[in-house]
């Protein structure tokens, strides 16, 4: 996606949000996790422009790290674990930590969801879990895509 497409898509999302404030997340046109990163995993122009603003991102809910959590990890592809190949889950580099407004109701790890929240950038360690993230969404809501 080039910069022009990014801007057009950003405008489309903003436009839809303004015009259809009550519309469900499922009909928004979300960005994808990869739109937050350049290939070398530095933050993209889109991420730098949207930081601190509400964004729509689609992906998959990784199986929550603990029950009754108020956060989950959004992944670009479902978190698959091959029992023959690996002894533990391998987190991909391009993940998004999503802090939710309400306790998380789990959606299957292989169902595409859309999340809406405020974008935060920069490395941060979660005080309760020790989970280190580079990108977060806060005050988030989510639904099946």
């Amino acid at each position: 996606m080039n910069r022009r497409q990014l801007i057009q898509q950003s405008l489309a999302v903003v436009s839809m949000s303004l015009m259809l404030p009550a519309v469900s997340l499922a009909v928004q046109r979300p960005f994808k996790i990869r739109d937050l990163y350049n290939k070398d995993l530095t933050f993209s122009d889109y991420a730098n422009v949207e930081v601190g603003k509400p964004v729509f991102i689609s992906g998959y809910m990784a199986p929550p790290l603990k029950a009754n959590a108020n956060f989950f990890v959004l992944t670009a592809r479902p978190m698959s674990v091959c029992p023959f190949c690996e002894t533990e889950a391998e987190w991909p580099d391009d993940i998004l930590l999503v802090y939710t407004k309400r306790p998380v109701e789990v959606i299957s790890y292989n169902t595409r969801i859309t999340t809406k929240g405020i974008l935060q950038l920069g490395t941060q360690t979660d005080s309760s879990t020790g989970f280190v993230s580079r990108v977060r969404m806060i005050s988030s809501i989510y639904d099946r895509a």
Partner: protein
Amino acid sequence: MKLKQNILLPLVLVSAMTQANENITQQSNQWYKAAQQTLQENIAIKLNTKRAKNVIILVADGNGVGTNYATRIWQGQKNGLLGEEYVLPQEKFPHIALVKTYNTNAQTPDSAGTGTAMHSGVKTKAGMLGVDDSVVRGDCSAVAAGSVDSIAEILAKKGKAIGIISTARLTHATPASVYAHSADRNFEDNTKLPEGCVGQKDIAVQLIEKMASGEVDFAMGGGRRHFLPKDVKDGENKSGRRTDGKNLIEKAQGFGAQYAWDQASFDKLDTSGDKPVLALFESSHMKYEHDRTNEPSLAQMVEKGIKTLSNNKQGYFLHVEAGRVDHASHDGNAHRAMTDGAAFMAAVKKAVELTNSEDTLIIVTADHEHAIAFNGYCGRGTPITGLCMGIDTKGTKHTNTPEKADDGKPYTVLGYLNGSGSVLKEDQNWTGTRPALTQADAIDPDYIQQALIPKSSETHSGEDVAVYASGPWAHLFNGTVEQNYIFHVMLHAATN
């Protein structure tokens, strides 16, 4: 026998030419002419019974006949063709066989058992490396008695230089099957060894000890974390995993090894062959080709390996693995399986370019297939990761109109029988329907192909794979063979 062949060959040639010159209605048809050309090329094949100075085996993990078919079409379409007609580099090789991949205790094999079969000449149980099937998986105490010699160990003793290249961790099953003896493929560093395990060392230590002794000269892939203590950060600020305090990278540098960990240090490696090479490009596996940045391609690694090992006058053995074709299929993500498959094909092409088939046996194969499957009926040139487009009865190329299933929805050409793309969802009590699907969705690089059976990770299958070969004694590959036979051809070719 040889005399008889010499007499018969001209007769066969004359006969073939005569047939070609007969007035057959379709003889000007392009397909007819192309097949005639192939016929003549095959008639002209000469068997090479020289001793192989060099042996290269290139393994695309999980690249069975079906996956190879998909990569062929993918690469052809990337080259501007319809795709089906494309010929992959190894498909130009003169000799081929089908390979039965099962492990002694598994109809569906794993890469440790298959790697051991290819490199040691005996089948064994799933999950074990360089040991025979007398060993119970995980039983360290049985490793010494159950160990078998690998082709690398045998040829190293005969003076050949030894190289191992993989896009997976170097301690992962397939590359480890070249050099390691382990009751479990997961014993990649000391933290994975069971308590009281004294019968074997962990896999990373085994590699470095082989390099120190001169049995391995060139090792390049991923997996830094298994070579570093947990309190040591690597070049990308990721911690090691070892709890025994051993810094195996420093140890390798201590006995004179060159070390590379990114593109810049890779580019600086000396290829004179005077010093062993250890390159570890990621903490875990190397990146998928689609995501690759700041680390070399598989073809670049093969070029570096051949140039380095070629300095040994007595020749070399080189194992090359495209380890992540398998991982992408486990994820149900055909796009990355294809792009890593294409990177593998580029590596095969590079190996062919840099060697001489008169003295180098090149073997291209896979360790196993996946639960990949192909829908129909799709028209020519249908994008292989995209929707199945209709057949144009008036022409050649597809209609650009998606075929629809009985549920009224389009479907992709390529799917997996199981995996995370399952349409059955846990939060819907394992029920579900196929989601609506557009071409944009299907050809997206992150798309997960639809599957039926829900599995977190899509599985291998026990289906046959192919083995393609060129060079000395390549003609020993024909028919349908057991996977452990591959070792025997390599050994015969290098030592006859």
